[in-house]
């Protein structure tokens, strides 16, 4: 396995003003080639104006087994949703 190129996660900004979104992953020997490969794999149909690449090994992810303590406490905290306020008509759609 040591001869495999590292895995890179690819983020593409579709239009100016939008945020970069994760589109997939690919292999490349270094960051510059990862950008070139991303250009060829993920922007063939005019999908992007900017590319970010991050080595997958550099991403720290939450663990699925922690989902109880991490996410369940917020389920019962309905007051965190701003649905209890009366919005004046003049404000319009928020």
């Amino acid at each position, binding site marked *: 396995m040591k001869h495999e190129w590292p895995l890179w996660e690819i983020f593409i900004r579709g239009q100016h003003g939008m945020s970069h979104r994760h589109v997939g992953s*690919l292999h490349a*020997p270094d960051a510059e080639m990862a950008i070139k490969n991303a250009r060829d794999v993920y922007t063939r149909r005019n999908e992007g104006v900017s590319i970010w690449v991050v080595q997958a090994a550099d991403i720290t992810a939450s663990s699925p087994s922690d989902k109880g303590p991490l996410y369940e406490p917020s389920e019962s905290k309905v007051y965190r949703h701003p649905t209890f306020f009366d919005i004046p008509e003049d404000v319009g759609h928020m």
Partner: protein
Amino acid sequence: MTKDDALFQFLLRMGDNTLILGHRVSEWCGHSPVLEEDIALANTALDMIGQTQLWLGLAGEVEGNGRSADDLAFLRDAWDFRNVLLTELPNGDFGQTLMRQFLFDAFQSVMLNWLQDSSNTRIAEIAEKASKEVSYHLERSGDTVIGLGDGTEESHAKMQAALDYLWPYVGEMFDGDAVDAVLAKEGIAPDPAELRPEFDAIVGAVLAEATLTVPDSPFVHKGGRDGRMHTEHLGHLLTQMQWLQRAYPGATW
């Protein structure tokens, strides 16, 4: 030779270079060493086929006999092709393919750079469109030549062997003739010899970084761009590329 005769020959040279090399590179589709390179090479091949449509389309207009780009691509025989020999050589290994691509990209980028200021506006427009694609091709093939040349002992040896094999085909790209002289006088296309210093600068910088050595031999294979004598490889390529139109004349997608 009239100006239109020379222009037709020049446009065939441009279009046949990208057609034949585009077909060669497309042969890698589904066979590349890694998926990412497979897609990248297919993109490059398609870019070159797209450029071919522009060059050969204009060639057909200039000729004035009603031949379309498709007619010129699929219904001519080997002796009517005007591509340089470099573009018809077999792919060899992946390194040889990328070395051939790099040498052609370097030439093509310098050529298109000149043609963007051509006195013929149709040519200048095609050159401007194609040069964006070719800048990327050159960056990619150049980086790969550096990566493999300055890589492992094995990859270095393969890239040096590829350069030794391909270098004698470089000179033909800069070997001007009467066609070039007519067009150079009109400011339509360059005397190719004029492009050599810029090519040598691009190639020299990349090969030095790739720790590769340019062979010390002045020998030049030629006969492609004037159609005098192609290699045996072109006929085999055409049987693959043209068989459908030959077997089913007029078939459409």
